[in-house]
């Protein structure tokens, strides 16, 4: 399994910290002046004078959970939608499914986030929901674009002729055909979701603006970048490792699955 080695290496550290971190974090010490290095804080202090290392230990879980939840949700909604649109023969039905999303796309997402922020005051769960839903139109468009071609292949005709169920056609045949595209898109969305969470946090949606959360840390410790880079660099690296690792693992998995199936 050599081809998995690289991706695994990248993802190992972040995952370990995310999972085990909270267990070893321990009690918070007294606050110091914000953005200072040294003084018993080996990664310095953050924007409210807390120990960065402790925040790093605590900050993995929410990132991983919210981002994954949001991405999964986005796909749970967008994939069936896009497939339905791609597999339906009737043009109007396709329009009915997809056009409303375009309107959503055209609405400045800033407005949506602000509104949810003020109107609903959601917790992390609600946030994942918001971020996930926000991604639906984009995901749907990308998946649909790939799926229409796959849905027009003779195989699908044959499956229909033999009374195959919609689900099998959609997920076993079409989705399988476009799995690389889906994986590539999902992989990048994951990261996108992460930082939407951070921005939203600052607007008061979801996690607290001073929450221990890698994405939030990167966002909020920015002002101290020159006094105390670790507060930004370390979480950023962890997130990068996490996302890059995930994507490379996807690649590796598909590499094996792939290969030239059609020979002649």
């Amino acid at each position, binding site marked *: 399994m050599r*081809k998995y080695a*690289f991706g695994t290496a*990248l993802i190992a550290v972040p995952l370990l910290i995310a999972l085990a971190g909270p267990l070893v974090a321990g009690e918070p010490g007294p606050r110091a002046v914000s953005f200072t290095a040294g003084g018993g804080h080996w990664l310095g202090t953050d924007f409210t004078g807390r120990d960065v290392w402790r925040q790093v230990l605590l900050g993995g879980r929410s990132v991983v959970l919210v981002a994954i939840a949001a991405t999964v949700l986005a796909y749970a909604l967008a994939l069936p939608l896009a497939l339905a649109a791609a597999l339906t*023969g009737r043009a109007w039905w396709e*329009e009915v499914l997809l*056009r409303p999303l*375009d*309107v959503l*796309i*055209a*609405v*400045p997402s*800033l*407005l*949506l986030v*602000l*509104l949810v922020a*003020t*109107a609903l005051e959601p917790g992390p769960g609600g946030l994942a929901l918001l971020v996930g839903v926000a991604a639906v139109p*984009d995901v749907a*468009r*990308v*998946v*649909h*674009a*790939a799926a*229409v*071609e796959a849905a*027009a292949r003779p195989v*699908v*005709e044959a499956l229909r002729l033999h009374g195959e169920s919609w689900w099998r056609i959609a997920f076993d045949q079409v989705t399988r055909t476009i799995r*690389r*595209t889906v*994986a*590539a*898109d999902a992989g*990048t969305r994951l*990261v*996108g979701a992460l*930082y939407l969470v*951070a921005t939203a946090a600052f607007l008061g949606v979801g996690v607290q603006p001073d929450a221990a959360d890698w*994405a939030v840390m*990167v*966002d909020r410790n*920015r002002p101290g*970048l020159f006094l105390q880079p670790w507060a930004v660099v370390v979480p*950023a690296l962890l*997130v*990068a490792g996490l*996302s*890059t690792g995930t*994507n*490379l693992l996807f*690649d590796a998995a598909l*590499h094996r699955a*792939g290969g*030239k*199936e*059609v020979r*002649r």
Partner: protein
Amino acid sequence: MTTPLRGWARRRLLLGAGQIAAVPVLVFVLTEALPGDAAVTIAGDDPDPARIAAIRAALRLDRPAVERFADWAGELVHGELGRSLVSGRPVADYLADGLAPTVLLASVTLVLLVPVAVGLGMLAARREGGPLDRAISTATLGVYAVPEFALGVLLTAVFAIRLGWLPPTAVGGVREQPAVLVLPVVVLLARPVCSVARLVRAGLIEAMAAPYAVHALRCGVPPARVRWTHALPNALAPAAQQLARTADWLLCGVIVAEALFVIPGLGTVLLDAVAARDVPVVQGLAVLFGVVTVVLNLAADLVARRLAPRTEVVV
């Protein structure tokens, strides 16, 4: 009889008009749903209730929402976008001022994005899982994982402050010193390059493995040509969609980059207008964004259709 394409295009244009109309309505509802109104934001940190009431009266915000929207729509029909509640300047001016820098930034970014992203995607796809593929994927994903803001601050620190090669911000105007565009454009490129390249790569790997590509190679067509003219078209549809979304994002205001580099584009206008609950301006932007989005989506779908011609016979 009309070709299916023309029929499709006509239908989509009609729908598009509907969508463009729908956007301001939705936006209006959202802005109304936001707490507070222009009067409150004008009052700022001196929220004397009497004063707020007076402002509200002066701005004629005390009328029912439906009435205000009707007025606005009525003006729009006569090609009038109305005036800002806060400053009284015509909304058209706001849009015009914001549009220039935004379009400039967006076009430069796109002009670079397409070749770079497609190029990288194709390079990565040459040998799936090969060192080049790994390198490109890791690099692009790594950059993608750094949020715009951190990236911008970092690049500015190095290239503008430490090395002094480039101006760090656009204060004093973009036209005067085109070099200010470099950093913003790089920051704007960072993420789309990754997402588009990844899609191109994915599609191309499939396509290059498909029998028709193998066959073309076997017939002696140069690999490069097979990749570009035979495989790529089959790989492009999703990337095209992603590209459209990117263009949309670029044209509808890139808030972070604008703030970071002091480029007073549409993003800034939107941000301020929403913060000030300056409904006419927000509405004006909504119309503009509606048009942009619909047109871009239409273009992307057109490309997708052309690249999957067999869909015409799907039963």
